[in-house]
């Protein structure tokens, strides 16, 4: 197998360009023992190495896309291994060096990758103590470990360090799932709000982002996308680049780009290039989107839950409640458009990418480049915030194909319009719910349906480069597990929830933070509020009628307490004079009905005349089990809430029959500073429980809590995201 060896050296051009030189070598990656670095998920050496100087390197296939796992994962290992946190350094997302722990998605970095690393550390620690027993001639029960040094408890001068025991040697051990973990009561590193290692560099301009990365002899490229999404390239007028120094066209099929040595020349060339494209108008009319969704053929039905006999229960109901909820198409909207650098030469590919999934992307690029996956190496570098499968993978495929076609290293930087117009989208979803209430207003039957695209869940969304260049590939779509949380988080005796998985959806779909769980929780938690209103009940008290899970009850009560919840039915009747009405709404969910519990209260102000709604404060109670880094958890919850308030109140992708027309921040506005709510939170730490994910769950809360708060304020139900002023004004009255 051929492996690519990278040597990094930093040198200054002007005041600080990171330039990386590298060479491609055949054979094994240089390791002390002359063996390739193990990456199998069952080997301790795949996850960590103890060096001669006492420092520790940990290896993870997950990447820090702004979430803070660059400190949280080292905290977990330092704790379990008993070394100082400052001695642990993390290598992330290098396909040659790190185990494939899955894409960085689904709030699973700490929950899955962190737990794998911790178990490897526990296995390593046990092995090191066994070595120390041999060396010191004392039983393990007489030894204590501190900061990587094993000492005899009664005679502390008798000691041996981890570095002396193993320094730069392989453990050659399988990870033992039964290796004992520390008692959480002894934790001194886990549970601490340790600052992140990368903030200082980000704030002073020395942190190397993907966009800052350069290699010698590199060309700058800009892609030229079709003016209509499905159009084919018919002609290119290369003479239209005349006058732009060094700019030239590279094309394969309908894949078109301009490359140049100067970045500005590539930008100007891409703008100026004249090309002829076939006509195409295959997008559905936006004003008829929901008719289009309902008319799309169903590939299969996924049953999220089916228990009891909801139909019979509804037959006994004193009252029936029905509602339909729709959720707009969203774009990821990273602040920095996607970027990548690739060097594809001599049958080898060395690629730098900000992808959330270097290991998966490597397999996808093997198809795009028509190369053996073993000859491709991807190294992760930070891009701008990644909230799911955005344009990073496509820009990487663009760079890889352009490098292959030019025989030179190529850097591709997408424009703002490329990113907004061409990243895969969060698909449109529609949920319809019916419930039967008894004479007291209690829910006795629940029946819901979701319309959302199907998912080939092991398939990565196809790259644009492969599609446009006409490279043969298996057709597949994957918007993620968007049926999750369609089943309500309440144990109703008679309930059914079915996801109609559609054959197609208007745009290439993918996942955007909290995919499906957000849309389904929006529907479920507005709907239960509608039932509470029909029963004349307080929304918190009404939810507590059904909840039996003590941790669920605890977060719901904590959120209500934090918000000083005023117990009464909605809508509010007292004190609502003047043009601006105030309201509060609650929402609750157990994430995927399997992990992190969250509850939130939104406070809103609604202008009755204009319909403009603003979320002024948002309260969150959050139980993710054991907290690794409380400051990291807080940052993620703030991000979940603020980003989703933006999605809920403002965001909707627009298009005509040929193309996306939301191509910048003016045509796709997001929340600005004056509109941002204050986020107030309470973290419930359960050190004895497993650590669960944090990056997504709280994002389920804003759409329903805000809709419920608008209802509380003005008695209008908003059943369509985003809650624009016209929808608030024209919504259904109570």
């Amino acid at each position, binding site marked *: 197998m051929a492996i690519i060896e990278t040597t990094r050296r930093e040198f200054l051009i002007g*005041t600080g360009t990171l330039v990386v030189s590298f060479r491609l070598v055949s054979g094994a990656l240089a390791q002390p023992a002359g063996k390739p670095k193990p990456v199998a998920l069952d080997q301790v050496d795949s996850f960590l190495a103890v060096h001669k100087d006492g420092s520790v390197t940990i290896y993870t296939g997950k990447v820090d896309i702004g979430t803070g796992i660059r400190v949280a994962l080292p905290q977990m290992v330092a704790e379990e291994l008993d070394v100082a946190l400052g001695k642990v350094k993390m290598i992330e997302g290098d396909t040659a060096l790190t185990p494939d722990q899955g894409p960085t998605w689904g709030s699973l970095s700490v929950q899955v990758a962190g737990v794998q690393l911790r178990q490897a550390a526990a296995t390593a620690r046990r092995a090191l103590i066994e070595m120390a027993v041999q060396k010191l001639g004392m039983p393990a029960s007489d030894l204590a470990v501190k900061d990587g040094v094993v000492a005899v408890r009664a005679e502390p001068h008798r000691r041996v360090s981890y570095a002396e025991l193993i320094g730069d040697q392989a453990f050659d051990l399988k990870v033992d799932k039964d290796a004992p973990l520390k008692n959480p009561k002894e934790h001194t590193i886990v549970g601490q709000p340790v600052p992140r290692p990368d903030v200082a560099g980000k704030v002073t301009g020395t942190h190397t982002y993907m966009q800052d990365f350069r290699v010698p002899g590199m060309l700058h490229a800009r892609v030229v996308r079709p003016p209509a999404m499905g159009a084919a390239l018919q002609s290119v007028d290369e003479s239209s680049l005349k006058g732009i120094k060094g700019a030239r066209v590279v094309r394969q099929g309908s894949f078109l780009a301009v490359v140049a040595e100067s970045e*500005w020349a590539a930008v100007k060339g891409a703008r100026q290039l004249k090309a002829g494209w076939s006509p195409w108008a295959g997008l559905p009319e936006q004003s008829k989107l929901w008719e289009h969704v309902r008319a799309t053929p169903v590939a299969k039905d996924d049953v999220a839950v089916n228990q009891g006999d909801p139909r019979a229960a509804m037959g006994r109901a004193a009252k029936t409640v029905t509602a339909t909820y729709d959720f707009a198409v969203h774009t990821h909207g990273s602040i*920095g458009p996607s970027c990548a650098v690739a060097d594809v030469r001599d049958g080898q590919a060395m690629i730098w990418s900000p992808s959330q999934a270097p290991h998966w992307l490597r397999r996808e690029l093997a198809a795009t480049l028509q190369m053996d996956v073993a000859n491709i190496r991807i190294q992760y570098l930070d*891009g701008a*915030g990644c909230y799911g499968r955005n344009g990073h993978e496509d820009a990487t495929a663009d760079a890889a194909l352009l490098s292959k076609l030019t025989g030179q290293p190529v850097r591709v930087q997408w424009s703002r319009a490329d990113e907004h117009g061409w990243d895969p989208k969060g698909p449109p979803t529609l949920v319809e719910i019916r419930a039967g209430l008894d004479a007291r207003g209690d829910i006795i039957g629940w029946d819901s349906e979701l319309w959302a695209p199907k998912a080939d869940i092991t398939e990565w969304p196809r790259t644009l480069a492969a599609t446009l260049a006409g490279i043969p590939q298996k057709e597949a779509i994957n918007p993620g597990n968007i049926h999750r949380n369609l089943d309500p988080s309440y144990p109703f005796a008679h309930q059914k929830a079915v996801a109609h998985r559609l054959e197609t959806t208007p745009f290439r779909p993918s996942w955007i933070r909290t995919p499906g769980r957000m849309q389904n929780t929006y529907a479920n938690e507005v709907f239960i509020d509608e039932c509470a209103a029909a029963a004349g009940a307080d929304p918190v008290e009404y939810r507590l009628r059904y909840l039996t899970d003590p941790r669920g009850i605890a977060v719901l009560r904590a959120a209500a307490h934090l918000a000083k919840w005023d117990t009464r039915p909605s809508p509010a009747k007292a004190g609502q004079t003047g043009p601006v009405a105030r309201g509060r709404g609650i929402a609750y969910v157990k994430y995927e009905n399997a992990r992190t519990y969250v509850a939130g209260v939104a406070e809103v102000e609604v202008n009755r005349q204009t319909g403009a709604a603003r979320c002024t404060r948002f309260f969150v109670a959050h139980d993710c089990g054991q907290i690794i880094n409380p400051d990291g958890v807080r940052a993620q919850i703030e991000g979940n809430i603020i980003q989703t308030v933006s999605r809920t109140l403002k965001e909707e992708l627009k298009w005509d029959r040929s193309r996306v027309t939301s191509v*910048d921040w003016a045509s796709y506005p997001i929340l600005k500073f004056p509109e941002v709510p204050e986020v107030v939170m309470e973290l419930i730490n359960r050190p004895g429980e497993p650590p669960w994910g944090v990056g997504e769950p709280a994002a389920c809360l804003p759409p329903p809590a805000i809709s419920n708060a608008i209802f509380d304020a003005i008695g209008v139900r908003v059943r369509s995201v985003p809650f624009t002023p016209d929808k608030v004004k024209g919504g259904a009255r109570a």
Partner: protein
Amino acid sequence: MIRIVVNGKSHQLDVEPDTPLLYVLRDNLGLHGPKFGCGLAQCGSCTVLVDGRPVRSCVAPVSQIKGRIVTLEGLGTAEKPHPVQQAFIEEQAAQCGYCINGMVMQTTAFLSSRPANPSEREIRQALQNNLCRCGTHQRIVAAVKRAAALMGKGA
């Protein structure tokens, strides 16, 4: 040849006069603090100071820049940060951090052009045309308050 003064140093550059300042800073001078976000002056990621005023370098042709340019790197370093940078570090006011250049530069201009102790409302107004997608706003506002306090003390 075009001459510009950046972070106290003078540079003679052989670049096309219509090149936006951002590309010159990043590609010719290796200053990566300012970021490419939109190329449309909509998001603020590329902000630099020209004679102390915030300028969106992605739309400013280099030939038209007359004043002295200061970039993020010119404010301070991780070892010796400017009070605004120090406040952002202390508040851990970055997630992905891509917008943070703009936040720091806009804040620096804002705090140096007005009396101490800005209100929350004034801070939010001052940053209203700087976009953040990760939802770090609350920490950024806290960092601006902290920076104002640090600069007040240092003055």
